[in-house]
């Protein structure tokens, strides 16, 4: 009754569905994988600052201590739609107050929610995946000490086909790669690489993306169109920047360029964070940047 062509079609469709199911399955971290790790809240604060969590998750216009109220609401326009940062305060129903360490680690390093859904990569988990498990556990410990806020998270404004969360498994399969981009021949460069490629997620803005939003590693940190559609995020390789170590450290401390222009836009929020890191950490970031290929 059914010809061989039909049977082959059914077979290939089922096979395709199985592959899709397998590839897009959201992976997560289990409690067992974190066994023996206890949170160091003080280090967790440093991880929180270096990772820039508050820069995106504080309420729009929040200043000073209010930036530790992670109520969400900042808007991030992109070619795929506008993403709205969710509430990640300690509120039990609107935030992440009820999350276990493993749930936070899965979210931050694998982009998977406690309900087993993929997060949009506007959340820079493809950088945070390089975070050590200890740092991620410390981060959880610190975040649990922050205030609660009951503002409900606003939905993202992303349209078909980008709004199909399951497809993000395919994005992760294609573009998530936890290997390091740069060599680290010494301890300082290793620290710099950890701060730039993992926690600081610098490449998320300073590296151009392909049509599907994957980072172009061949153009690492060479600058990219601003996701707002206006202007460019500058390249930061040595010849593009033209700055020495002291210039970079000064910029990451005070926001002043060597010409006494200042950082603008989202980079101001980044510098509010780097200014709170140790001088050694800022020097490590400079060492990393100065080693980028031109």
């Amino acid at each position, binding site marked *: 009754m059914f010809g061989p062509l039909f049977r082959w079609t059914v077979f290939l469709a089922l096979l395709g569905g199985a592959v899709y199911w397998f590839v897009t399955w959201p992976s997560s971290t289990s409690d067992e994988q974190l066994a023996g790790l206890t949170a160091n809240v003080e280090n967790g604060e440093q991880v929180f600052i270096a990772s820039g969590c508050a820069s995106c998750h504080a309420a729009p216009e929040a200043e000073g201590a209010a930036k530790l109220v992670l109520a969400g609401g900042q808007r991030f326009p992109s070619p795929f739609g506008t993403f709205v940062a969710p509430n990640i305060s300690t509120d039990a129903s609107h935030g992440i107050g009820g999350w276990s360490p493993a749930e936070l680690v899965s979210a931050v390093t694998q982009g998977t929610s406690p309900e087993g859904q993929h997060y949009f990569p506007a959340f820079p988990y493809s950088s945070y995946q390089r975070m050590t498990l200890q740092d991620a556990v410390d981060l959880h410990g610190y975040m649990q000490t922050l205030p609660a806020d009951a503002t409900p998270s606003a939905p993202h404004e992303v349209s078909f086909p980008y709004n199909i969360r399951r497809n993000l498994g395919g994005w992760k399969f294609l573009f998530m790669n936890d290997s390091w981009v740069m060599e680290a021949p010494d301890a300082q460069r290793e620290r710099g690489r950890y701060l730039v490629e993992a926690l600081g997620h610098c490449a998320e803005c300073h590296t151009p993306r392909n049509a599907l939003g994957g980072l172009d590693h061949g153009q690492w940190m060479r600058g990219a169109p*601003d996701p*707002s*559609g*206006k*202007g*460019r*995020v*500058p390249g930061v390789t040595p010849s593009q920047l033209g700055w020495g170590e002291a210039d970079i450290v*000064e910029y990451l401390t*005070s*926001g*002043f360029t060597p*010409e*006494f*222009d*200042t*950082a*603008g*836009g*989202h980079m*101001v*929020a980044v*510098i509010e964070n780097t200014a709170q890191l140790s001088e050694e950490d800022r020097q490590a970031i400079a060492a990393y940047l100065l080693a980028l290929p031109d």
Partner: protein
Amino acid sequence: MRRFVITATAAALATATVAIAGGHGGNPAVKARNAHMGLYSFNLGMLGDMAKGTTEYDAAAASTAASQLAALAAFDQSAYWEEGTIQGEVDGSRAKAEIWSDAAGWAAKQELMKTASASLAEVAGNGLEALQGGVAGVGEACGACHKAYRGPRN
């Protein structure tokens, strides 16, 4: 056919001339405020280099530069923050539309720059440490406005 070619060439030349004139002349309001920013950066540069230790601290020179910075901040700039001269619509502009849609917030940031540069002018001649504190305050004022109201590089 020949006539068409001549007409087309003339039209292309006219377009090119307009384009070049536009690029060369630019919008006067945008040019004026970029020049204003250039004067900020020149005076702040002298102070900042002293604060960083790149050049030696000189109380008199610091006072002069700081009072010029304060005078610049006190300028009435309203004429050259002309509505509609936003990034993407006018060449050379990095102004965000929020300057006009959030006029009160913008005015507050300008006021912040006035206050910070006036405080710097008061203390710039009182030694290196006082200068450093004042320069940091001005830097924060610059950054606060650039964060909210200046777009990325063109």
